């Protein structure tokens, strides 16, 4: 047992570190660091740079652009991309639909979709959640009935992240309403967002941002060739996809970068005779977050190391631990930042007639502090709420 990186691993890390800082525009990285909203272009630009260097889809099969990395190398990549505040390759493409197509799609689908998915020529959205379903994902109601060479889709999806940018959407749809169990009779369908009958309606969140959407399907005609894998087997593909989703869900590298930034800003922000950093109470809470994050980082390393030997179908509590603690510490970091802002966490600058922000009222970073805190309440809700994660641990691992 040795928790230190080998010389090779250090070289690999340093190379990535230099690459990210050299090749990804500083302005984009600054936005990530400050928790500001990224534009579609920011994300596309970044992914294409990564793709040009063969780094957009390292987790895919090598023949489709993946890398034959060790688990430790994958871990280092994931940590370094976050620590450098580089927008990660679009998860819907890279961690979700890509692996599903690569694993369960037919040859034509692979050929057609994988290259543009890797280069973000197609922007994918996820069509899983439905109103009223929440954590009970399998209770979905959107239907697809077969008519000749087409499926006709009707229903509604919600919480569709960045759906406003999407070219395509991968959906779970009910193809057999009479199946005995709700998990059966679900299929996995790829749908072009330009198809008539699709309406996207924005959901504005409490931070004032437009990140998620409702997507309505009204008699939407989808070619039958867009069915992935077998009819009525979509739930299996969804489970495969969701287990990939949890990779990196703890976002340790990003949080580490954020806590370092909180520390810097606390040292710069005046308070009394000195700065916020002089307040031992503040420093104590920051120290606790750092320490908990360190423990979680090692937990994540242990998970990575265990991936080599663990049976894929054995219940593993570690992704739930990463989700619970990772989300808690991410939330702590946003709250600490808001506290550094102090009274200047309050202003919410009006927008001008074009919708652009007016100049900041307080320090520029302070504007974003409260909205980020508000927005980050989501991380303990989405991806299976922390309550669901505790259920999973209790049932699957503790046998309760």
């Amino acid at each position: 047992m040795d928790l230190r990186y080998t010389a090779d691993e250090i070289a690999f890390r340093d190379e990535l570190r230099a690459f990210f800082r050299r090749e990804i525009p500083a302005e984009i990285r600054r936005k990530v660091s400050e928790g500001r909203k990224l534009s579609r272009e920011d994300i596309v630009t970044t992914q294409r740079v990564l793709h040009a260097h063969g780094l957009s889809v390292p987790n895919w099969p090598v023949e489709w652009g993946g890398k034959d990395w060790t688990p430790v190398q994958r871990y280092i990549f994931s940590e370094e991309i976050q620590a450098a505040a580089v927008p990660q390759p679009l998860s819907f493409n890279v961690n979700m639909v890509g692996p599903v197509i690569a694993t369960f799609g037919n040859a034509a689908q692979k050929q057609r979709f994988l290259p543009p998915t890797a280069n973000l020529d197609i922007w994918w959205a996820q069509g899983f959640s439905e109103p009223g379903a929440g954590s009970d994902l399998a209770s979905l109601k959107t239907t697809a009935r077969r008519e000749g060479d087409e499926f006709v889709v009707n229903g509604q999806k919600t919480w569709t992240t960045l759906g406003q940018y999407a070219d395509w959407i991968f959906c779970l749809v009910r193809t057999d309403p009479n199946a005995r169990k709700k998990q059966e009779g679900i299929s996995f369908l790829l749908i072009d967002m330009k198809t008539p009958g699709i309406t996207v309606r924005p959901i504005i969140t409490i931070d004032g941002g437009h990140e998620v959407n409702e997507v309505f399907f009204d008699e939407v005609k989808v070619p039958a060739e867009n069915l992935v894998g077998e009819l009525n087997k979509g739930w299996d593909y969804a489970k495969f996809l969701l287990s990939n989703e949890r990779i990196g869900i703890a976002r340790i590298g990003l949080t580490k970068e954020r806590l370092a930034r909180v520390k810097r800003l606390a040292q710069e922000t005046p308070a009394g005779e000195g700065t916020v950093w002089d307040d031992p109470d503040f420093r104590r809470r920051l120290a606790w977050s750092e320490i908990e994050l360190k423990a979680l980082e090692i937990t994540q390393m242990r998970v990575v190391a265990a991936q080599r030997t663990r049976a894929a179908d054995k219940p593993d509590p570690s992704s739930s631990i990463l989700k619970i603690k990772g989300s808690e510490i991410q939330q702590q970091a946003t709250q600490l930042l808001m506290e550094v802002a102090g009274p200047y966490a309050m202003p919410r600058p009006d927008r001008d007639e074009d919708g652009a922000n007016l100049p900041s009222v307080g320090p520029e970073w302070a504007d974003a502090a409260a909205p980020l805190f508000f927005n980050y309440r989501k991380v303990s809700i989405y991806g299976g709420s922390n309550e669901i994660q505790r259920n999973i641990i209790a049932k699957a691992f503790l046998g309760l």
Partner: protein
Amino acid sequence: MDFDLTDEQRLLADSVNRFVSDRYGDFEKRKAYRAEAKGYAAANWSAMAEMGLLGLPLSEEQGGFGGGPVEALLVMEAIGRGLVVEPYLATVVLGLGLLRRAGGQEDLLAEVAAGGTTLAFAHQERQARHDLHDIATTARQDGDAWVLDGAKGVALHGDSADRLLVSARTAGGRRDRAGIGLFLLDPATPGVTRRGYATQDGLRAAEVVLEGARATLLAADALPLIELVADEAIAALCAEAVGAMETLRDLTVDYLKTRQQFGRPIGEFQALQHRAADMLVATEQARSMAMYAAMMVQGSDPAARATALSAAKALVGRLADQLGKDAIQLHGGIAMTEEYKAGHYFKRLTMLGVLFGDVDHHIRRVVAAGGLPD
């Protein structure tokens, strides 16, 4: 010891509660109020004046009700329940709190009580954070008038206020307790620049820049007065937080009863039941602490008063923070949307935690004092 309201107090509570449920029962209306020119509803303000709420703390000779901390508590709790956007805290609690004690402005008091004039307190400075005595803005005498130079920030409802109460240093260094004067200023005076903006909780505030602005001195060496009124504001904010916590808790419990998942109302899940029970415990503890604040703000010893009010702000802040987060979590995604009420209560509770000092600031003051007063 008596927890019963007097008949007058009961009447007051009933009428404020009726006002809030009439005007804020439909949450959509709040959006419309915020869209008005001043960021709140002129009609609501007039109604509050007619109900006598705007003159509440004034003596009967001044045309008011002689309302004290208990009356303020009743009004502010109702304001919290409705997330009322009118500038009651700015004009009545802070503005009148200062003005009526500084003395010599009887006409202005009457105008405020009648609803014709609103006030704001421009005190906060950027370097000061939560320290009330940290004032860099200067005042120099020029004949009968005073001339102010400096910058004030996050003045609640300072963008629309008809008169500003401004603190400025007549003597001493930036962090000296002595030498802070309180001034009255017409924002139309040359040398005054205001930048108004919305706050994260949907209210309004302003940055105020003073460049040779002429003002009237209301009180010299006014820090003790400012600290007293800040403590009254803290008591008011505690009461407002209790009202908001109660509503948010009820909203959450209702949601747990109606939202179905896995084939049953999620309120049947015991882990969520226990979280909801903790929300009730938190609300009742916060209510008790708001009462303590109302009781102690009347105390004659400023040091004991300050410690007690810090204790109240710290505990209510901590409870409100946890309750707000739990409310969002128990709701799930729906509470993350701007359309739904819960998020707005959460945001207001978060900002109440920042106003007049956050939890860290106030618990530090209690620690420095060696604990609660007897």
